């Protein structure tokens, strides 16, 4: 046995649904030919109801073997610092120094889904970052995006990550809109770990009109930010039992509401191959008032077979003629042999049923066939 795991991985997933009807074929591949080059692609084609398809990822990454620099080109998701994720066709590069400085630059055209027509759309930006005391990193970023030649987004951002102690870490980012001056988005998360507990405090402020492209008429309605302040507590109550509780106060406009959830997962074996889960949720913010409960169960049946089921009931406070509860359920059986005949193949079939705000009854059958190939 040798440490030389750099395979070419190809995977194909075919999904068929009885509803619509929908067929979907997803092909993905990844290869790390040498330490300095790797490639990746993901394309899909489907019918819903007319034939369509798209390229989600198609990239080539070149890397200086010691990490001093990287260049990526093609179609990929750009996200760095306070720049919100953008799927684009273009290039990104980074230069790093051993003392923790880095400079990133990127440019390209935002992706238009399904090979749609492009106008004069492009975006450019950069980020400069520096490590401090080996336990913190701070970055400053700038992005400008244009739709049909007009500025739709121009922001500067600051991001910070710090882990001053083994039991405490902090991350924050904020983006300042230069087109309609003001904070577009600010988020902070601080977490501490003590024995089997993890406690996170988080806060966020978003200005929806500034998150929309500045070319949209709905971006001129003024600054009505929404704020969130909350905490998430994770408790490993027993070796196989995790409890996650989360609560947040949320201000939207002049109103203050809350969002609360409690999630428990009980693993049925030490590896977590089988598990039971229960999640309760309550949201009471502005006009979004509802209560929900979700349960899951999954259990291996041997010989690569696995049974799973998932049930959810959501109940809006105001039915408004769309039904007073929206139940949803799914039962699935998957087969994934790890040895012998059929290795590399994966099959899953499921039936789902629901009552939705639009349809009183809805059923759907799903079938997925997957094949993974590895070449070393």
């Amino acid at each position, binding site marked *: 046995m040798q440490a030389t795991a750099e395979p070419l991985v190809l995977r194909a997933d075919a999904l068929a649904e009885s509803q619509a009807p929908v067929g979907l074929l997803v092909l993905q591949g990844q290869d790390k030919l040498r330490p300095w080059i790797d490639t990746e692609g993901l394309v899909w084609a489907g019918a819903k109801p007319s034939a369509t398809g798209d390229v989600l990822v198609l990239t080539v990454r070149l890397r200086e073997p010691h990490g001093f620099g990287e260049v990526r080109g093609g179609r990929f998701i750009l996200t760095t610092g306070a720049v919100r994720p953008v*799927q684009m066709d273009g290039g990104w590069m980074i230069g790093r120094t051993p003392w923790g400085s880095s400079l990133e630059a990127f440019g390209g055209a935002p992706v238009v889904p399904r090979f749609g027509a492009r106008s004069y759309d492009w975006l450019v930006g950069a980020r400069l970052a520096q490590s401090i005391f080996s336990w913190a990193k701070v970055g400053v970023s700038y992005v400008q995006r244009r739709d049909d030649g007009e500025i739709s987004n121009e922001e500067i951002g600051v991001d910070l990550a710090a882990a001053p102690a083994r039991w405490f870490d902090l991350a924050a980012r904020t983006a300042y809109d230069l087109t309609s001056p003001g904070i577009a988005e600010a988020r902070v998360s601080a977490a501490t770990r003590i024995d089997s507990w993890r406690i996170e405090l988080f806060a966020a402020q978003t200005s929806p009109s500034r998150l929309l492209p500045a070319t949209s008429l709905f971006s*001129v309605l003024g600054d009505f930010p929404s704020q969130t302040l909350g905490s998430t507590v994770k408790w490993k109550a027993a070796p196989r039992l995790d409890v996650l509780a989360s609560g947040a106060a949320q201000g939207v406009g002049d109103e203050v509401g809350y969002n609360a959830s409690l999630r428990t997962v009980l693993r049925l074996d030490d590896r977590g191959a089988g598990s039971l889960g229960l999640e309760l949720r309550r949201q009471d913010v502005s006009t979004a008032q509802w209560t929900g409960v979700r349960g899951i169960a999954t259990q291996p049946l041997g010989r690569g077979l696995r049974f799973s089921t998932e049930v959810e009931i959501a109940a809006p406070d105001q039915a408004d003629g769309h039904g007073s509860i929206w139940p949803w359920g*799914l039962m699935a059986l998957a087969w994934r042999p790890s040895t012998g005949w059929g290795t590399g193949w994966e099959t899953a079939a499921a039936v789902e049923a629901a009552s939705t705000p639009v349809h009183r009854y809805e059923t759907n059958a799903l079938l997925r066939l997957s094949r993974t190939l590895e070449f070393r």
Partner: protein
Amino acid sequence: MKPRLLVSTLSRRFLLVLALAFTLAACAGVLGLKTTSQSHPFEHRAHVIKGVNCVECHAGVALAGDTGPVHFPSDAICRGCHTKPHNESACGTCHGESFVRGGAELAREHLRFEHKTHMADVKGDCVRCHVGVADSQPTELRPKMATCFGCHKHQDQWNLRDCDGCHVDLQTEGALPTSHLVHDGDWVREHGVRAASARDLCATCHSERSCAACHGEGTVPALPARLAFDTVSLSGLHRAGFKSRHALEARGDPGLCTTCHSENSCVECHAASNVAPGTTTSNPHPPDWVTASGGQHGQQARIDPMSCAGCHGGAGEQLCVGCHRVGGPGGTPHGPGFTSTKNRQHDMPCRLCHAVGQ
């Protein structure tokens, strides 16, 4: 019975039932407090207490390089001391757990590591790195990365994201970080702010597909929630009956959807299900949405402009311009806090309402 007393009694009963259920589950081993599996962690601690040196069983490991076998003891080695085994099964059937052995094999395949170069530094004391051996109930014997960092600072490599010195290929290794960047808590919500300063670090383990599956334009068909429908342990916004509750989720956190979706995403789906402008004759808004004195629509649009743009964006904006253009009956749509550096006669969207000279 008074309602308050009833609630109190019910609460007490509920707590009693909960405590009873928890106790039963703990006794039954369901919570993992008591092992029920036939295989159990190998009795490393007992061997250490008896004075058995690690290399007596793991023969050859002290001279092991980057390649070769993983040096698990054979049954013959066990029977060198345990001359009267209690049954004929292979020792590893019960003594030691398959996932621990799997972890070691994974490490051999994916890590560049030589025991022989470390033995002198630790003076043959394997427990300095394999701290789990000393536990009475160890679950993981592979040293955590923090243990490596105890001697090897690797600050330069960390700054350069140069993981290749030890990790052959993190993306296929699939090992979860347990000592740094722990993906714990409500990670789906948290990952955005955590990744902001470390996007290139994320990329050392995660492929582009990981991001694109959710953040790409028009990714709905390849969403993990859709494609991995049988992996019910996945959490995330789009699981289960999301189709039913998506409007509530969107209204409850204005701007959340724009993190991944463009403002045109709504129309794409709504048109297919005949609930978009031009495809339906029914009005989704309440009766007092637009009135002579304004109605609800102005306030709601300011709180959640994304929802409006979802249906009325692009050419649909003319609906707003009809009333809210300069001099129009709707008055100015600009709310408190509105400022802009745009030229109102030439730039979009200002020029839609501001004619030259206004």
